[in-house]
């Protein structure tokens, strides 16, 4: 193997120019001549003798050149130059091909980049592989823990180098920035240094330490805040002591953090003393393993501690608790779990689209190869090996792919950011390039080249010298081209069938989501009144319950209105336990508490199926009442009438605080499309002392609701005013996005199939012009010609539908879990897609068929 050395030599010394050799040889000969003269020869004789001694200069030059040659590289350079010339010679083709590839590869890059960021990327911290999440499992469900439990664990464990607790509840700040509490070891454990100032440490987390805050790089840039300035956080004014490095977004991918403050500030900035109170489970724990300790060993060591101190966090009687230590190299949170499926789906779709684009391109190249068959024949005849010509044609494809990738790179990064912002979550998701992406890009480009370049190159060179040079040989070469072309079109149409049925299924799923039975009137108007979790805000909004209720009901045009706390689509959800004398709360229960004023059920359009709703009579001091939803009534009373029975709003029944069931309301989709119904307890807001967090109303015209609210309390923040249907729709972001993208891909696929069928049939007609001319001359009718061409289209279509149909059914089966409200009848959708494709294919074949049928036999026969 000498070529690597020669390559290095040429790269770094740039080889040696022939002129240098000439100079060296001339100098050599001159010295020889001097020597001969010195020995007494006449100058001419000396000159001649030196030339004799130094013979075979041509050979020497040749040898010298050969020593510096890199056969593969030099012919590659030649091929690339030739390919560029060829591509420049047909700018239309080149532009179309590059555009096609740029779009196809760009889309793949965009999805891949998001996929990579969501599923594969480690946290941007020191040695992410050492990080673990330490969880408390209740049976099998991970639970948040309280601060006292964390404190005991941190003080007693020996298996972790460092561990910290962090909350994912944003602190209320006037600037609307998202700040979070983290214990003192946060930055040390992650191994993150400040880019400016310093990060906080355990020292800053002592009780009574001066309040400090560390900003994220992005927030620091955005806010214009400087070190030494302060952030007002309700009861504390935190001094900014440092800025985290760029790219560090915290421990939860997809959830951007603006700043962090030490845990000890908690009692000053949010309600309740959670530092010493065990009644809050709100923290996640992350630690870094000591060298040589495995996650399993750490789990074994931490488990007894968890069991011993589980009483320091929120636990429930009769449950078993244990520790789990899981790798946290990609951080914590559920971004990957939520987006894994849709992202792989998108990846599959763009992959299929790219495959279609490539086969389209292969068809174009096949056409070009046919045009160039004479040139190729000449080169074969002049002694070029077939391998050499295939290599040259492949180089051309590779150059195309390279240019396409170049154009795809900016498209890919734009597309990735667009996708993230369209998905609405994952703000701050770091979409960075890395070696993953480089490998992916190169692999995609190479695979594309093989798909669209190899078959045409092989086909173009297979014909052989003679047939390529003979003009009549079009039939044999043409037959081969037709065979390739037909298989490509069959592949294309099959893939489009899969893509179009996918699009139809997603559209159907979206339709199902929007048109499901919500259990209420979608036209009811909801006004969200966000609640800050501060004692002042809670007191203020508690006092506003009845003034708002009366003011809104008095507005002209309002037919009915009600106020509520924690209702459907509210930004706040309150959960509770529920039990009856016979049935304590169960682990699987999901019970929401909703506090409502009179007229609530009437306004929302939630039917009362048993008993009565909440009325004016359920005021403070009246017997405590509750309305259950159907799911709760069924589970708690097993189908027996619920009205008149008693339930406790806690895990264990207590007759002293029991509420009497006065009615049962229908189940309602609470906050999102795939929300399980769960249990709902509706209690009178008059008996609950809850703050108002929402208004619901039905009105004719525009009653000026916002002005009315401002009239009562001008400082009250009010969320969007929208109908339940609109609020629900806004939560369908991912489903809409998937349906839209799938629809777009479906359309592209349809267009490509159309173009593919059209191209293949046009070529078939052109190739058979002579034959068709004879048929017409012999008296074949137009109908017969039409039938002949359309039969070809029908054969292509039939083959594709068999292949694609199998793919579509398999795809439908794979998608079933993702689709909402999938019914067996939805298997008809692929059939519909097939019908659509069939229509497109026949439309595409009509023009070539018409051209064939209207051929002038005289012209046709004169052609060759």
């Amino acid at each position: 193997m000498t070529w690597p050395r020669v390559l290095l030599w040429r790269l770094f010394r740039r080889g040696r120019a022939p002129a240098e050799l000439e100079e060296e040889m001339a100098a050599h000969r001159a010295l020889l001549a001097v020597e001969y003269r010195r020995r007494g020869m006449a100058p001419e004789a000396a000159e001649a003798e030196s030339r004799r001694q130094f013979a075979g200069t041509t050979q020497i030059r040749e040898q010298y050149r050969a020593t510096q040659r890199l056969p593969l590289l030099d012919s590659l350079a030649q091929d690339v130059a030739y390919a560029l010339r060829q591509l420049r010679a047909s700018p239309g083709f080149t532009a179309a091909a590059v555009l096609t590839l740029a779009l196809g590869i760009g889309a793949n890059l965009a999805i891949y980049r998001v996929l990579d960021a969501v599923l594969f990327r480690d946290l941007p911290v020191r040695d992410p592989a050492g990080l673990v999440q330490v969880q408390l499992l209740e049976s099998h469900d991970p639970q948040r823990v309280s601060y006292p439990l964390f404190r005991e664990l941190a003080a007693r464990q020996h298996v972790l180098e460092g561990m910290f607790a962090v909350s994912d509840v944003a602190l209320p700040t006037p600037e609307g920035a998202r700040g979070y509490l983290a214990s003192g070891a946060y930055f040390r454990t992650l191994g993150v240094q400040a880019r400016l100032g310093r990060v906080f440490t355990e020292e800053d987390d002592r009780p009574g330490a001066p309040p400090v805050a560390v900003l994220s790089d992005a927030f620091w840039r955005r806010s214009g805040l400087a070190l030494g300035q302060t952030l007002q956080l309700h009861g504390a004014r935190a001094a900014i002591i440092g800025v985290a490095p760029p790219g560090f977004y915290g421990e939860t991918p997809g959830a951007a953090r603006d700043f962090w403050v030490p845990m000890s500030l908690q009692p000053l900035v949010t309600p309740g003393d959670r530092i010493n109170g065990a009644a809050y489970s709100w923290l996640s724990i992350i630690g870094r393993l000591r060298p040589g300790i495995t996650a399993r060993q750490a789990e074994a060591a931490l488990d007894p501690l968890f069991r011993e101190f589980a009483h320091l966090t929120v636990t429930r009687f009769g449950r078993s608790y244990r520790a789990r230590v899981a790798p946290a190299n990609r951080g914590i949170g559920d971004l990957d779990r939520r987006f894994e499926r849709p992202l792989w789906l998108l990846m599959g779709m763009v992959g299929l689209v790219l495959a279609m684009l490539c086969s389209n391109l292969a068809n174009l190249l096949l056409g070009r190869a046919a045009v160039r068959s004479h040139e190729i024949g000449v080169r074969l005849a002049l002694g070029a090996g077939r391998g050499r010509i295939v290599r040259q044609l492949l180089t051309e494809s590779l150059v195309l792919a390279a240019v396409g990738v170049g154009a795809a790179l900016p498209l890919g990064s734009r597309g990735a950011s667009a996708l993230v912002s369209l998905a609405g979550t994952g703000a701050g998701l770091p979409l960075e390039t890395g070696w993953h992406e480089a490998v992916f890009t190169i692999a995609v480009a190479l695979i594309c080249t093989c798909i669209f370049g190899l078959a045409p190159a092989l086909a173009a060179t297979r014909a052989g010298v003679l047939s390529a040079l003979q003009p009549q040989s079009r039939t044999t070469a043409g037959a081969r081209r037709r065979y390739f072309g037909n298989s490509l079109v069959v592949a294309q149409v099959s893939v489009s069938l899969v893509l179009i049925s996918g699009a139809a299924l997603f559209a159907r799923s979206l339709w199902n989501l929007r048109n499901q039975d919500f259990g209420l009137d979608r036209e009811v108007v909801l006004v969200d009144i966000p609640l800050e979790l501060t004692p002042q805000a809670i007191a203020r909004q508690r006092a506003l319950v009845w003034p708002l209720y009366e003011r809104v009901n008095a507005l002209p045009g309002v037919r009915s209105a009600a106020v509520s706390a924690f209702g459907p689509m509210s930004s706040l959800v309150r959960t509770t336990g529920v039990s009856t004398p016979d049935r304590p709360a169960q682990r699987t229960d999901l019970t929401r508490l909703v506090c409502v004023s009179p007229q609530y059920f009437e306004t929302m359009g939630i039917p009362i199926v048993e008993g009565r709703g909440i009325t004016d009579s359920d005021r403070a001091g009246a017997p405590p009442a509750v309305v259950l939803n159907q799911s709760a009534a069924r589970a708690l009373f097993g189908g027996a009438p619920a009205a008149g029975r008693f339930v406790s709003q806690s895990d264990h029944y207590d007759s002293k605080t029991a509420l009497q069931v006065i009615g049962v309301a229908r189940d309602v989709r609470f906050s999102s499309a795939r929300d399980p119904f769960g249990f709902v307890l509706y209690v009178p807001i008059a008996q609950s002392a809850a703050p108002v967090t929402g208004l619901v109303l039905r009105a004719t015209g525009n009653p000026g609701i916002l002005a009315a609210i401002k009239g009562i309390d001008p400082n009250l923040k009010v969320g969007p005013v929208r109908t339940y249907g609109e609020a629900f729709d806004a939560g369908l972001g991912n489903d809409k996005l998937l349906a839209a993208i799938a629809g777009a891909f479906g359309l592209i696929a349809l267009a490509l199939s159309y173009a593919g069928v059209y191209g293949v049939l046009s070529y078939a007609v052109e190739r058979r012009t002579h034959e068709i001319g004879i048929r017409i001359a012999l008296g074949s009718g137009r109908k017969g010609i039409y039938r002949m061409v359309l039969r070809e289209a029908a054969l292509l279509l039939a083959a594709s539908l068999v292949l694609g149909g199998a793919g579509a059914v398999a795809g439908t089966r794979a998608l079933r879990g993702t689709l909402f409200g999938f019914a067996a009848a939805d298997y008809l959708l692929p059939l519909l897609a097939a019908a659509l494709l069939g229509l497109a294919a026949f439309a595409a074949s009509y023009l070539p068929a018409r051209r064939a049928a209207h051929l002038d036999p005289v012209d046709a026969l004169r052609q060759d």
Partner: protein
Amino acid sequence: MDNRSEVPYGTLDLMVLRTLESLGTLHGYGIARRIEQVAQGALELNQGTIYPALLRLEQKGWITSEWGASDNNRRARFYSITRAGRKQLAAEAENWSRTVAMMARMLEGES
């Protein structure tokens, strides 16, 4: 009969390295002259063939070169041996003497 022999295959590199090792920096002409002197007329050397050999040796990193002025004030390339070249020379020389000794034993034994 001419008892001058052609340069045996593969020995030219060795000769060049040895020459540069013993005489230090030389230009192509100097190297060729020195080889002829040492061969004492026993070698038919086309002096031009040392240039591809020099290039090959330089590519392998066994010698380096730079431009300088020759005795008659023409520009000439001067070659010198590198550390890697010395090592290679030592290894090759050892190899070569072993081969020669072996051949000698074999031929003596045969006759």
